[in-house]
């Protein structure tokens, strides 16, 4: 049906060979002569005033070249969206992953030994570990101005009138847990002074434009004196933003102090202790519903644990507030989402970014509604689902193709949902020791950053004199396949084979600030920029060809490595791509062009929560089939169907890869993942205790790709990275309900939760004095 050459093909990853042969170089694979190694001194209290730091013993250790505290930071020691993350703790410690001092020494062991000799005097302060307690009046204050990081609202219609009108009310409370990104490669960076009074940073930063600014500001240097080179990344999932910046900037400070290359590396334990997590949410949902299954009012409150620093909390919770009502019609909405500081690990960006939490609540509520009305989970969703032209809770009219019903029906068909759902809810099944269950979920998601931030991306395409092509982009590949997808887009535009294209490592000096590679914006924004850059190069080539061959540039086509005159009825090849390239250079026309992708307007009113939040949305549906061991609560995933409208699949294999990985990650969130802290102390600091699904636990998966091209995306492409993960958990818990008749309201659905309906915790004395506050 399509007339594409490479778009839509299952092209192998352009970086696959290097990864399987070991040629790919990750941050820790870079080393330099005379390099020093860094180590950190951690905070010893989750909340304390720092009275003094004595580094004298550490400095005496032979082999130690530098010991730095906040006093030694020449520039800005703070950064962040709300700039309260400290590179080195100054007046206070706010969580146990705070770093009070850093050491550089000839080897890692010496550096660590010295760090252990640093003596810090503290005055311990009351700590608070629960975000709702943190918002109480008498709670210990973690940052000046109070513990409320943000409060987002959506107001639509009149909820009181809506509840009045309702036939019945469903009210439930849900809890989600903090989780670790669990990227394979822990944070690492190598920083070295260069010949021009500047510094080069090689590292694995997901958002290297931000790292660039933070490092330059900390060193007190202009941006052009700091060069960031992005190494091959071993995963990130949103996790290598501030967490990786912290590792890199500490290395940079030590490199500046010593004048030598410094390697800073987190072990897995360091990584889990320091890095931010996905926000834990407490969610209060109240729906006023009608007998026909429609929803008259939704009142929602959610409180997110922001941990010690603001990080991305304002944006994460903003996506939550926009999407909290799901892709369902409801005339009356009142939503309040809060984020609060606590003395837990700070929380920030993670694949999903505020949607997995609300999706768990929404999709559990939807199944409850189905149960009350006496229809199937599919029927209730079809009854309430957005259609073309629908107006969202924020008052946005959807002008793209709204494919929610299409993905729901496809998911149900691919899984034989209706029949199995009926069979499994029978007494005969539910009373078995091993009942089966099937669960459905769906979601919509605003693409890219939306009204939360400035949204533009750049790329540069350079056709070299021999006709080979290099592409540079500001969007990075952390394993999701961005290089392959962008190379395919360029290959399609220029009509040449993929093998002719080489993707350069992202470099802060090469491409203009493209913002972060987050929010599933890699293809739509980065790919969009690459397409424009390639088209700009092609324009130059067309004009030269028009002159050389006396044809109209409007009739020129680029296919199969050739340039064609597609004039009228006939097509005739004029020359090869290489010949035209040579002709361009011979006439003084270098083939080098950049492309910048901007997005359509979005807008937002903070007070009412009304506006066009995102320029377009994607739609997906998941079905999980499980078998529950009613004796132990163990849940086995049998089958999984995941359907996504991606606009256009630039590479079907890469899209499927995103879907499979997303299911594994999302189901793990549903069933076992949990970052456990006791009084702020991280307990699950390696993968023997922090459980993620193994290959043995991953079910049989079926990925179904739906394509409704969108005017905003390159060749119609939208996104899939986060949609793939964000609705898996409620599909699993809805399946558990189908099997057992009991609803899981607290994630994860681990052994105890499924067997007993509660979590069990080792008895620890709570250090939080805030818990003594009388509840109002």
């Amino acid at each position: 049906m399509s007339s594409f050459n490479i778009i839509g093909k299952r092209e192998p990853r352009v970086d696959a060979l290097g990864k399987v042969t070991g040629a790919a170089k990750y941050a820790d694979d870079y080393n330099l002569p005379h390099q020093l190694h860094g180590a950190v001194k951690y905070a010893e209290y989750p909340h304390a005033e720092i009275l003094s730091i004595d580094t004298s013993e550490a400095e005496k250790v032979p082999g130690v070249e530098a010991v730095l505290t906040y006093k030694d930071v020449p520039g800005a020691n703070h950064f962040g969206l709300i700039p309260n993350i400290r590179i080195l703790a100054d007046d206070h410690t706010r969580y146990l992953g705070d770093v009070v001092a850093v050491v550089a020494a000839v080897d890692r062991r010496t550096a660590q030994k010295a760090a252990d000799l640093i003596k810090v005097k503290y005055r311990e302060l009351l700590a608070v570990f629960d975000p709702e307690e943190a918002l109480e009046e008498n709670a210990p204050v973690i940052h000046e101005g109070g513990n409320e990081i943000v409060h987002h609202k959506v107001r639509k219609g009149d909820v009181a009138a809506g509840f009045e009108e309702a036939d019945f009310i469903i009210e439930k409370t849900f809890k989600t847990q903090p989780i670790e990104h669990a990227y394979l490669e822990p944070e690492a960076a190598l920083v070295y002074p260069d010949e021009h009074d500047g510094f080069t940073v090689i590292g694995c930063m997901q958002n290297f434009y931000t790292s660039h600014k933070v490092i330059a500001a900390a060193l007190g240097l202009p941006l052009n004196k700091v060069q960031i080179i992005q190494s091959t990344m071993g995963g990130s999932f949103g996790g290598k933003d501030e967490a990786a910046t912290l590792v890199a900037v500490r290395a940079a400070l030590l490199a500046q102090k010593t004048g030598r290359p410094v390697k800073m590396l987190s072990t897995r334990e360091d990584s889990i202790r320091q890095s931010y997590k996905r926000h834990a949410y407490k969610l209060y949902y109240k729906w006023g519903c009608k007998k026909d299954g429609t929803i008259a009012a939704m009142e929602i409150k959610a409180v997110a644990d922001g941990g010690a620093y603001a990080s991305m909390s304002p944006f994460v919770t903003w996506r939550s507030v926009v999407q909290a009502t799901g892709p369902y019609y409801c005339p009356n909405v009142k939503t309040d989402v809060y984020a609060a500081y606590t003395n837990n690990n700070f929380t920030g960006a993670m694949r999903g970014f505020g949607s997995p939490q609300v999706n768990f609540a929404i999709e559990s509520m939807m199944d409850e509604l189905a149960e009350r009305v006496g229809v199937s989970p599919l029927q209730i969703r079809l009854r309430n689902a957005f259609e073309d032209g629908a107006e969202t809770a924020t008052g946005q009219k959807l002008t793209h193709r709204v494919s929610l019903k299409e993905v729901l029906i496809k998911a149900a068909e691919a899984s034989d949902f209706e029949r199995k759902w009926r069979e499994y809810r029978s007494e005969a099944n539910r009373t078995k020791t091993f009942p089966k269950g099937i669960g459905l979920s769906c979601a919509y998601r605003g693409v890219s950053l939306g009204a939360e931030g400035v949204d533009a991306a750049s790329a540069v395409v350079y056709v070299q004199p021999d006709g080979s092509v290099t592409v540079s982009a500001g969007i990075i590949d952390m394993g999701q396949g961005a290089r392959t997808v962008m190379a395919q887009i360029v290959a399609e535009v220029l009509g040449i084979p993929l093998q002719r294209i080489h993707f350069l490592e992202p470099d802060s000096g090469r491409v203009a600030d493209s913002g972060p590679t987050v929010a599933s914006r890699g293809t739509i924004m980065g790919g969009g920029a690459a397409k424009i850059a390639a088209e700009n190069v092609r324009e130059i080539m067309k004009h030269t060809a028009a002159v050389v061959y006396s044809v109209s540039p409007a009739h020129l086509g680029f296919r199969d490595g050739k340039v064609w005159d597609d004039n009228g009825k006939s097509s005739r090849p004029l020359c090869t791509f290489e010949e035209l390239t040579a002709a361009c250079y011979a006439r003084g026309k270098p083939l080098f062009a950049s492309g910048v992708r901007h997005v359509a307007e979005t807008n937002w009113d903070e007070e009412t929560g009304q506006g066009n939040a995102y320029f377009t949305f994607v739609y997906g549906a998941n079905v999980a089939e499980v078998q529950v061991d009613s004796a132990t609560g163990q849940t086995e995933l049998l089958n999984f169907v995941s359907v996504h409208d991606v606009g256009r699949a630039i590479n079907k294999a890469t899209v499927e890869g995103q879907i499979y990985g997303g299911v594994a990650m999302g189901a793990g969130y549903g069933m076992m993942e949990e970052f456990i802290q006791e009084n702020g102390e991280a307990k699950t600091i390696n993968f023997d205790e922090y459980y993620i699904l193994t290959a043995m636990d991953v079910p049989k998966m079926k990925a179904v790709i739906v394509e409704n091209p969108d005017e905003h995306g390159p060749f119609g492409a939208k996104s899939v990275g986060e949609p793939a993960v964000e609705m898996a958990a409620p599909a699993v818990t809805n399946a558990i309900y189908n099997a057992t008749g009991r609803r899981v309201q607290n994630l994860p659905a681990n052994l105890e939760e499924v067997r007993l309906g509660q979590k069990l915790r080792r008895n620890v004395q709570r250090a939080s004095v805030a818990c003594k506050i009388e509840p109002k």
Partner: protein
Amino acid sequence: MNYLRPKNLTELTRTLSDASAATQFVAGGTDVLVESRQPYFSKPQTLIDLSRVDELKSISETNGLIRIGAMATHSEIIAQPLIQRQAPLLAQACAEIGSQQIRNRGTLGGNICNASPCADTVPPLLALDAQVEVLNEQGLRRVAMQEFFVKPYQTVLQKNEVLTAVYFPPLPDGYGSAFYKLGRRKALAISRINMAAVLKTNHHGIIEEVRLAPGSVFPVWKRVAAAERFLTGKKITDQNFMQAGQITAQEMIKISGRRWSTPYKEPVVAALVKRVLLMAAGLEEQ
């Protein structure tokens, strides 16, 4: 730090004379190496690497007893037809340990000597009435599995003693057996609870002999004598098996008291006793 790698049993015996509290044996190293990174780990002065002592590796049957050398890996045990036939529950337990890589390196001796309350090979060995063979300068001695463990992570082995082999009688014809492991996922998960059973019934379905060994249930490894007594002479029924389970759960609470994990463990231990007994009896759980 000294590193010794004896090449045979004689050399090993010689190294034992100098062994002290600061001596550490290394078999596959899958426990030792992980522990060596823990803050509480006290660095040994001497490491004795057992990997070159061939006498510790063989699996054989002599004088009516199966002998498994302490250095046999889990993978080697799983692959042995002798074990698959005569002690299938042990092969099942080894097959559920860690992952392929761990099973290729980890040894039976290491699993026993590490004495973790959730070690997966211990319940089958208890149910098989195994004995362990211990070597010191004086020579060899045998200790019954039941007497081998002192407390979690501690055995009766002295500093200058090494485990050389495990012995047990093959399961006679007509004996059913089973192993069941409950973990938080399907691979690379330590046992939350594990359970082994050996069961002999006559043709009227009356239990003549039963051995029941749960893991992660008691602080010190042992079989559940009370449940075994209850079952002997009774019919194999769901109800009897369930009652044996409740006896086991009560025994657990009697010994360890009610703890944070009891609300879960109490019903689940009972259910798993029933499950492992049904499996040993070759019956389906409904």
